[in-house]
């Protein structure tokens, strides 16, 4: 229930495929208000509960130096008071009505996720519409929440070696694009955001024409649309924010970043620049990641964990992002493992993919994993709401969800080596090492 941001490196496997009978494109209703607010409905009365998700097209990619982490900070401030409801009242009212909520910020979007019983619907529509337009950013609360985010950074990055290394690796690999920094932002920025800047940012991005509301579960679409009109119609639209125009220049040689800190165990990561989620090569790489690094039967797990016993675990995959980001490989090495050898083995395995591709068995396996994960994510109202909203924001339309299987089946297994070759090469590679200092003596 804690408001949290999701580290973009975790769990970004793509979950999409053919739709089963009970969740069809025809069952989705879409509306748009005059102020630009887009609304997506999926009605399902299986349990007396509603998932109400609000997505804003804003994440750390919209930030700039000095304001890093501000998208995530506003996510926190969204619970801290409006002209109508004082600080903390959002949560108190929501819980009083039987609801609970969370929120997350990624590189590309910010999502507010509410789960509540049907009779709380009108209050929730009122609360969500209210905080879209009239946050007050009370100065005292502002300072206190700054402390919360600083604590979150200490916990999530500074006291977590893998996250700390990832922050360094991404900042080394990505020079120019705002993906250079992590969603949480740099500590010095966290400690110095100014209130006026935050308000300006909020005004720009928290506009109805920059938002999508997804409602899934036990509600009446007609009545709910009336409620949404009642509470949201008067929110003025804003001038659309300027597009993110920076394009990351091609990398021209291997980069390496080394962190030395007190630890008992090293960390090791390798990243390659990768295409954005709408690019033609994205699907092929998201098929490839499964036999390469996901699961105990994957090539890298077998080599590094099982055969050579250099690692405790491996994980990774391609980031599903609006702008091109990274294909990510993270290894938790054994304490005494030779990191150079780990890198060599990863190279060997990637070269094998580039030269020989993946087997038909591996290709089928990837498609099965995608299908199974996808159905699994649709077991709940919240899973459906999240899929509809993220597809709308990342792929331009929720409809993407209903054609994904076709898109995957169009990826030809024979094309994978050629696509892999474009990305997995020495010039495009960044390596990160966290090397323990002291602590054991």
């Amino acid at each position, binding site marked *: 229930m804690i408001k949290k941001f999701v580290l973009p490196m975790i769990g970004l496997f793509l979950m999409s495929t053919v739709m089963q009978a009970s969740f069809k494109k025809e069952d989705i209703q879409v509306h748009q208000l005059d102020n630009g607010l887009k609304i997506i409905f999926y009605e399902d009365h299986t349990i007396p509960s509603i998932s109400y998700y609000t997505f804003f097209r804003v994440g750390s990619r919209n930030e700039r130096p000095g304001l890093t982490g501000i998208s995530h900070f506003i996510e926190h401030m969204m619970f801290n008071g409006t002209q109508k409801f004082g600080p903390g009242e959002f949560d108190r009212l929501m819980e009083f009505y*039987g609801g*609970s909520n969370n929120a997350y910020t990624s590189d590309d979007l910010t999502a507010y996720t509410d789960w509540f019983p049907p009779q709380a619907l009108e209050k929730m529509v009122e609360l969500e519409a209210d905080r879209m337009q009239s946050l007050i950013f009370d100065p005292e609360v502002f300072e206190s929440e700054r402390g919360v985010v600083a604590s979150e950074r200490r916990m999530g990055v500074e*006291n977590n070696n893998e996250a700390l290394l990832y922050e360094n690796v991404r900042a080394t690999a990505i020079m120019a694009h705002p993906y250079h920094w992590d969603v949480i932002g740099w500590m010095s920025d966290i400690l110095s955001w100014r209130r006026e800047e935050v308000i300006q940012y909020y005004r720009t991005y928290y506009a109805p024409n920059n938002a999508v509301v997804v409602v899934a579960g036990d509600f009446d679409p007609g009545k709910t649309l009336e409620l949404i009109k009642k509470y949201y119609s008067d929110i003025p639209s804003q001038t659309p924010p300027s597009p993110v125009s920076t394009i990351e220049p091609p990398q021209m040689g291997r980069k390496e970043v080394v962190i030395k800190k007190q630890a008992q165990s090293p960390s090791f990561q390798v990243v390659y620049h990768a295409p954005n989620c709408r690019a033609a090569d994205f699907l092929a790489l998201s098929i490839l990641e499964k036999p390469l690094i996901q699961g105990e039967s994957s090539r890298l797990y077998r080599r590094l964990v099982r055969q050579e*016993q250099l690692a405790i675990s491996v994980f990774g995959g391609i980031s599903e992002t609006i702008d091109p980001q990274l294909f990510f490989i993270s290894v938790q090495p054994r304490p005494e493992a030779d990191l150079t050898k780990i890198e060599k083995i990863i190279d060997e395995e990637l070269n094998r993919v580039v030269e020989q591709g993946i087997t038909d068995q591996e290709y089928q396996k990837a498609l099965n994993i995608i299908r199974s994960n996808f159905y699994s994510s649709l077991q709940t109202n919240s899973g459906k709401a999240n899929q509809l909203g993220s597809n709308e924001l990342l792929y331009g339309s929720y409809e993407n969800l209903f054609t994904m299987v076709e898109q995957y089946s169009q990826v030809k297994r024979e094309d994978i080596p050629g696509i892999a070759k474009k990305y997995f090469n020495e010039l495009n590679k960044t390596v990160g090492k966290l090397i323990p200092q002291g*602590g054991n003596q």
Partner: protein
Amino acid sequence: MTRNLTIISILLLILPLATMASVKLPQPEKFVLDNGLTVYFLQNSELPLVSFRVLIPGAGSAFEPQGFDGLANLTATLLLRGTKTLSAEEIAESLDFMGARFRISDAEEYSTVYGECLSEHLPKLFQIAADCLISPAFKEDEYQKELSRKIDGLKAIKDNPGRALQLYFRKAYFGEHPLGQLSTGTDSSLKKMSLREVKKFFSARYRPDTAIMAVVGDIGREKLLGLLNQSIGQWPKPSSPPLPVTIPPLPAPKGKKLILVDKPDATQSYFALGASGFAVDDKIAAKASLMNTLWGGRFTSWLNTELRIKRGLTYGASSSFQSWKAGGIFMASSYTRNDKISEMLDITFDLLQTAKEKGFSDEEVESGKNYLLGQFPRTLETNASKASAYLRIVYYGLGFDYYDKYLTEISSTRAEELKACAKLLPAKDFVLVVVGKGDDIRTLLSKYGKFQEKKITDPDFGL
């Protein structure tokens, strides 16, 4: 606070509890296989998925021989590392190929087999599950790999203060009591571990006739019975009587037990405060969970309000009751900058005292009820969560009307009953473990009493 109470009193008039629709846990069908395995089944064909679970009483960490921490976990893990007919690689390949989720993991009182897959893959997944349970190979090289992975894993745990805290707390609270056995293992337990112990543990503890299985999803009764009889139904029932699965009464802290774990590079201090709780089937469970919801169990709880919302000391603070058959514990925990740890602890102790002295207001109780009732339907939304609920009800002997009764009890609880319930919260008798930077916090902590100190780099998690 008062500003909001006005609003809330108005709300009371327009949100009567009676309007709270809820869900019932559907009654499953029960059958017993020839080998004594009891199966609970519910068909749900909404999605082409099936979830199943098998709970094996006595195969958890509390039943490891003293000092063999991690034995139950090693045993459970090794079951997937090869059988008489399948290698570890073949098992991993088959599971991944289906996109199935399958694992065997150990809790304190039992181990659990978890499976979920597309319905078309269920026959294959049952076969693998049966093979793992019936004829594990327990090969020496697989054992060695897993053992050394665990040994190295301990170091990674100690690099993460939040995770390490939980293990130090377990040892501090339970000592040599079976619930103090750590599933991760410890440096010394893994040193004396042997494959012989694993085999012994498996043959003594894994058996079908005391196990409970739940299957929920897209499959018909007859088809399921056929599949089970050919797979897990073949798991032979041993001729020996089952070993006892009782756990001695839980230790109750007397006075303060204070422990400081020095982690010199920590930029935050993490604390866990624990005291006696109650058993799963205790009559107080529903009311206590309502009380805990208000004190430390949700975002607007007292603890999170004071530590996070009002003061920004932390990203999160929470408390919970953890219960087993033989008893349970209460635990509150959070973390903050090293120099703020005593401010954080002072507030926590104050809140405990206030709850005991003053209890909770009618408005708060109303809010807590609405919250628990309003969130309840989501807790039984998936196949897997229904399967878990069946196992919990059967293992702890709670009865299939357990959740109905629980909800009824929650909705009828009054504020004065919660005040009585707050007696459960710790006052003088507790265990407090802090992991943080010793040099920055030693003096700050000294006002609470004398802390026993340990370095994070010292082996093991006990004293």
